């Protein structure tokens, strides 16, 4: 599955589509305050864009899009952005995830909450996108010598 597709049509169509899917994913995350959407939906769309390239161009050729080695650390970073924001608020004396407790000069509590939600959504988007890509890369194995010895190494 992670071997490159042979069809030129599939390659060109997926290359074109992936860019639009990812732009739409960013839109869904950033516009989540005003329209349906948010971190989960946008993160899934961003992951779909990466995985489309993964499936058609092969795993090796698609590494520059999002390398397997950095996908899992980025998923951790996304989760840490979310959980860490709550911990930061604790230091300002508020309850966990009570964004309004952070004193930002020249900003009313409602706007602080607005930006708190935005930071959280970006963290969710990052964690979901890279988490899904990481799961895909772990579960789908490249068979360089495809053929009868498939799975001979086992899980070891």
């Amino acid at each position, binding site marked *: 599955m992670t071997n490159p597709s042979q069809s030129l049509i599939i390659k060109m169509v997926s290359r074109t589509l992936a860019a639009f899917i990812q732009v739409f994913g960013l839109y869904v995350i950033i516009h989540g305050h*005003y329209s349906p959407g948010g971190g989960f939906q946008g993160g899934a769309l961003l992951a779909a864009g990466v995985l489309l390239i993964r499936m058609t161009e092969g795993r090796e050729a698609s590494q520059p899009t999002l390398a397997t080695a950095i996908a899992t650390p980025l998923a951790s970073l996304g989760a840490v952005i979310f959980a860490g924001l709550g911990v930061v608020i604790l230091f300002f004396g508020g309850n966990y995830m009570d964004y309004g407790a952070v004193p930002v000069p020249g900003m009313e509590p409602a706007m602080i909450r607005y930006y708190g939600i935005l930071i959280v959504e970006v963290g969710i988007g990052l964690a979901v996108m890279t988490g899904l890509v990481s799961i895909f890369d772990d579960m789908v194995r490249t068979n360089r010598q495809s053929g009868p010895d498939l799975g001979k190494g086992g899980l070891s």
Partner: protein
Amino acid sequence: MKMSKGKKLLGFASLLALTVLLLVAVDSLPKRGLPDAPAHQVINAAGNPGAGAYFIRSAYEDAATPNMVTVVLGDYRSFDTLGEVVVVFAAAIACYLILRRREDEEK
């Protein structure tokens, strides 16, 4: 394994009865968006302030965000959303620990 005709009929009949029961239950729920529904009361049946009415009334004032679903997910119930992210992250970590092939065992 072959099921006898009587058993099959019995299974089908009980399935049909269950379907009717569920449809009746759904039909007797309050209509969607009905203002008199118990879930939409400012003071609910137990005498406490209802959460739904509070969210609808003050979501915009509290967070300056027109989409109140985002406010509920990202602010009022952000602890729940944190749990959802941790579920996705735990799945990724589990796949990483169990399935990923490291360089030294590539052969």
